[in-house]
Each structure stands twice: as structure tokens, then as C-alpha cells.
């Protein structure tokens, strides 16, 4: 029974990774860049909720909405100020800028909120479940996280396949120049991608801090890196890949913590990444890139 419990909380942790990984994978797929500041947007989302709910005493739902708005604005601003001027630059220049933005966000948070960990009040009000005569208990946070992840995946897939903007995103991700020739505003499409990714980061922040209720300026950094691993794992650029990668990562991490060693769990996760990439360099669901002659 304890195995089942570890498995479920692993899926829940994996769902958070998956939601974060979506931001990485969409931005990579469409803007062809790794936004290493993505993890820190989660932290900003966490602090936004903390401020609205714990300091100002407003309802948790309002906190999440505020956080989503703040993060969306932040993501679009970062894209406009830091990344857009580098659109034609080498990918290394963009990568270094992204790392710079990541440190900037962490240090701004350090300046405003200090380095002491804040106790985050869970935004989830749903009670936990007790199954199998009380031997298996699942927390409300776990259930909500998994449900939210499913809803996000389904709506995002529908958004991309059914809407005009979604089709524009697919076109930009394949061929920016050809997309512009269709009348698609490439810059605006990239900005929308950042907006969606950042709003998802805010939701991930709410779920992450509700499950692990300690908030510091570095809260987003490790989950950000793990979600990046999840995105690469599943095949960067692929939305189902982000889900699959996230869930596998969360489950492996949780089971390693439970049965092998909690200190070695990260090492196991990253070793698995290395093995997968050796066997399948494009990730589990990654598309083979055919260079056209």
C-alpha cells in the first residue's frame, strides 16, 4: 500500500514538473530558445500569491489569478526587453541572457522579500481522501495537482489544434519566414507563447508551494531545472512529451527517495536523463530533425 502512496505522490510531483516543462517546451518549440529564467517565474508566482493571500488576506483563488496576471506580464516584458532584441543573435548570446535574467529575478526577490523562508499557506481547500480502510491516504493537494495538470494538458492541446493563434504557433515553430509570408506576426506569436508559459508557471508555483510550503527566492530554481530535464526527457518541443517526461521524472524521483536514498534521488534522476539521451538523443517523443538539402 505504501508503494501506491509513493507512486501517487510521484505522479503529483510529476504533474507540477509537467506544467513547468510545458513552458520550457513551448517557448523552445516556437522561439527556439531555452528560457532559463522560467523556473524563477514560478518563484515570482509563489511570492505574488503569498503577498495577496497571507499578507493582504484575500481569497486563495484571487491570489492565483493575481499571480497568473503578474507572471504573464513579467514573461511578456522579459521577452520584449531581453530576448526580442536578440532575435537574430547566436543561441549562446540568448542563453547567457536568459541565465542573467534568472539571477536578476532571484536577486530582486532577495532584495524585496529577504532570504528567510516564508511559510506558504496552501491554496488548496479540498480535504484529502482516505482509501482502503484508511491505509492509503491522498492529500487534497495531490488530487488537485493531478486534476489541474490534466485540465491544462487538454485545454492546451485543444487551443493549439483548434484556434487560429494555435495554428500560427505551429507554423512559427516550423518555419518563421514562411509563417511571416502567411501574414502571421511572428513577434506577437512568440510573445503570446511567453504569456501562456508564464501563466502556467504561476499555476505551477501555486501547486508547488502548496505541496512543499516553504518559499524562498530560490524556490523555483531546482524545480525549474528538473522541469527542463523533463522537457528534454520527453522530447523538447513536444507537448505530450512534456507531460510524459514530467510524470516519469516525478515518479522516479519519489520512488528513489522512498526505496533507495533521498540524498541520491537527484543523482538517479539525472543519470536516467543521460541514459535516455544516449539511447534517444531527441527524447522519448522528440521528433527526428530532418535536415533538408
Amino acid at each position, binding site marked *: 500500500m505504501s508503494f501506491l502512496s509513493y507512486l501517487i505522490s510521484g505522479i503529483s510531483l510529476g504533474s507540477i514538473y509537467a506544467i513547468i516543462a510545458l513552458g520550457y517546451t513551448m517557448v523552445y518549440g516556437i522561439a527556439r530558445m531555452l528560457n532559463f529564467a522560467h523556473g524563477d517565474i514560478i518563484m515570482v508566482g509563489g511570492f505574488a500569491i503569498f503577498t495577496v493571500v497571507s499578507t493582504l488576506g484575500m481569497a486563495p483563488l484571487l491570489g492565483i489569478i493575481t499571480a497568473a496576471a503578474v507572471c504573464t506580464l513579467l514573461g511578456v516584458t522579459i521577452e520584449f526587453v531581453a530576448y526580442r532584441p536578440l532575435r537574430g543573435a547566436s543561441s549562446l548570446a540568448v542563453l547567457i541572457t536568459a541565465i542573467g535574467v534568472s539571477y536578476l529575478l532571484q536577486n530582486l526577490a532577495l532584495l524585496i522579500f529577504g532570504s528567510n523562508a516564508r511559510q506558504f499557506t496552501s491554496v488548496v481547500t479540498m480535504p484529502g481522501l482516505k482509501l482502503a480502510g484508511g491505509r492509503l491516504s491522498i492529500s487534497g493537494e495531490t488530487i488537485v495537482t493531478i486534476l489541474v495538470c490534466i485540465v491544462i494538458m487538454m485545454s492546451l492541446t485543444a487551443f493549439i489544434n483548434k484556434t487560429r493563434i494555435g495554428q500560427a504557433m505551429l507554423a512559427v515553430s516550423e518555419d518563421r519566414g514562411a509563417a511571416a509570408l502567411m*501574414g502571421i506576426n511572428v513577434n506577437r506569436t512568440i510573445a503570446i507563447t511567453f504569456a501562456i508559459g508564464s501563466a502556467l508557471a504561476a499555476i505551477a508555483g501555486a501547486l508547488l508551494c502548496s505541496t512543499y510550503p516553504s518559499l524562498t527566492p530560490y524556490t523555483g530554481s531546482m524545480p525549474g531545472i528538473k522541469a527542463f530535464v523533463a522537457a528534454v526527457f520527453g522530447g523538447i518541443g513536444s507537448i505530450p512529451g512534456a507531460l510524459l517526461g514530467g510524470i516519469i521524472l516525478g515518479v522516479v524521483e519519489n520512488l528513489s527517495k522512498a526505496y533507495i536514498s533521498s540524498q541520491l534521488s537527484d543523482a538517479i534522476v539525472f543519470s536516467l536523463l543521460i541514459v535516455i539521451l544516449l539511447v534517444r538523443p531527441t527524447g522519448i517523443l522528440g521528433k527526428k530533425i530532418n535536415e533538408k538539402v
Partner: protein
Amino acid sequence: MAILEVKDLEVYYGVIQAIKGISFEVNQGEIIALIGANGAGKTTTLQTITGLIPAKAGKIIYEGNDITRIASHKLVSMGMAHVPEGRRVFAQLTVLQNLKLGAYTRKDKKEIEETLGAIYKRFPRLEERKNQQAGTLSGGEQQMLAMGRALMSHPKLIVMDEPSMGLSPIYVNEIFDIIKEINDSGTTVLLVEQNAKKALSIADKAYVLETGKIVLSGDAKELMNDDSVKKAYLSE
């Protein structure tokens, strides 16, 4: 009346001057061909017109408006469509998705459906393969898709870059027949081609480009009989 005027256009790649001050006109309803060897600057000229490459000097006037500094994506709703070199269809998307993206700037769903019907009529093979990934089509079919996709925006001027490149002779003939048809139905065509013989056979007027300059221009039929053109481009 000129739908497109290019005046003293100069384009640079870094310090290298690719286009050295060219001027030409495209009149409403015509087929204009730009011919010349590899590296003469034909594609560069087209890409500058449609805003993919910035112009260093000179002017591009479309329907009386200066479009020299206008972004590519805005030209589509002004009625200009570009069939790029190498077709550049969205290989991972289906034929239908590609065609619908061609109508991205149009709002009226009913009109879009009508255009789609007309395109299926002109290219029956695209309808047969509408749910197939564009990357799985043959070269000729991809060229048809690229043309159909451009027509979906209902353009007044269609700019085509090397539509016959890499196609088998049967497809080459078919593609040129279709270009003629597109023009007959009222769309002005600006055509860049290495296949000078074919291009001149359907064009009204032509300009010959050599290393970034127009060296010869005139009526397409006359150019076809010009000795220097024959020697250099028609391999006679």
C-alpha cells in the same frame, strides 16, 4: 497601371552588395519574369520586396504605397502573396492545415471555404491528400501546395520564386500551365526563374539580372529571340 514599382533598389549582405540599384515595374494583370543565373540576385530582389530582407536604398511602391520598410506579415492583407524558393510548406502539418494558414489574414469563413473549393478544383491532388502531412508529398505536389497556400490569401499580386526548381519535366510543364491560369483569372504574377525558356514563354515582359544589375529588359517574346539571351540563358 503599375501595381508594383521598384526604384533604384540596393541590398547588402553585410558589406557585400547583392543588388546594385535596380528598377522595374509590374503592371496590373501581367506576368513579369526576372531571369538570370544563380547568384544574380533574383531571390534577394523578391525577398526584399516581401520584406524578408531590408533594403539599403531605393523604394518599393505597391499600389501607390511605399512598402520599403513594411514587415512581411503586413503585406499579405494588402494583397501580396509570396511563394518562396524551396516551397517551404509546413512539413509536419497536413495539406489542409497548410492551406488554412494561407488564409490566416482573412476573417470571413464562408469566403475562405469558397476559395478552398476553387483551389481544390485547380489542384485536385491537394484535395485527395488534404489530411496527409505536407512533408510526405512529392516535390511537384509540394509546389502545388505552396501555390495553393499563397492563393488562399486571395492575392492581387503573387510573387513566385523558382517554382520549377527540382521538378521533373512533366511537373514543370504543369506548373507553368497553372501559373498562366492563375494569371488568366486576374492575378498579377512576378516570377523568378532559372528556367528562362519556360518563363519567357508565358511572361509578358522580362528583366535579365546579372550580378545584381538589370542588363536587359523588354518584351518576353523579343527577348526570346535576342542573340545574347539565347546564348546565355536558352542554351542554344
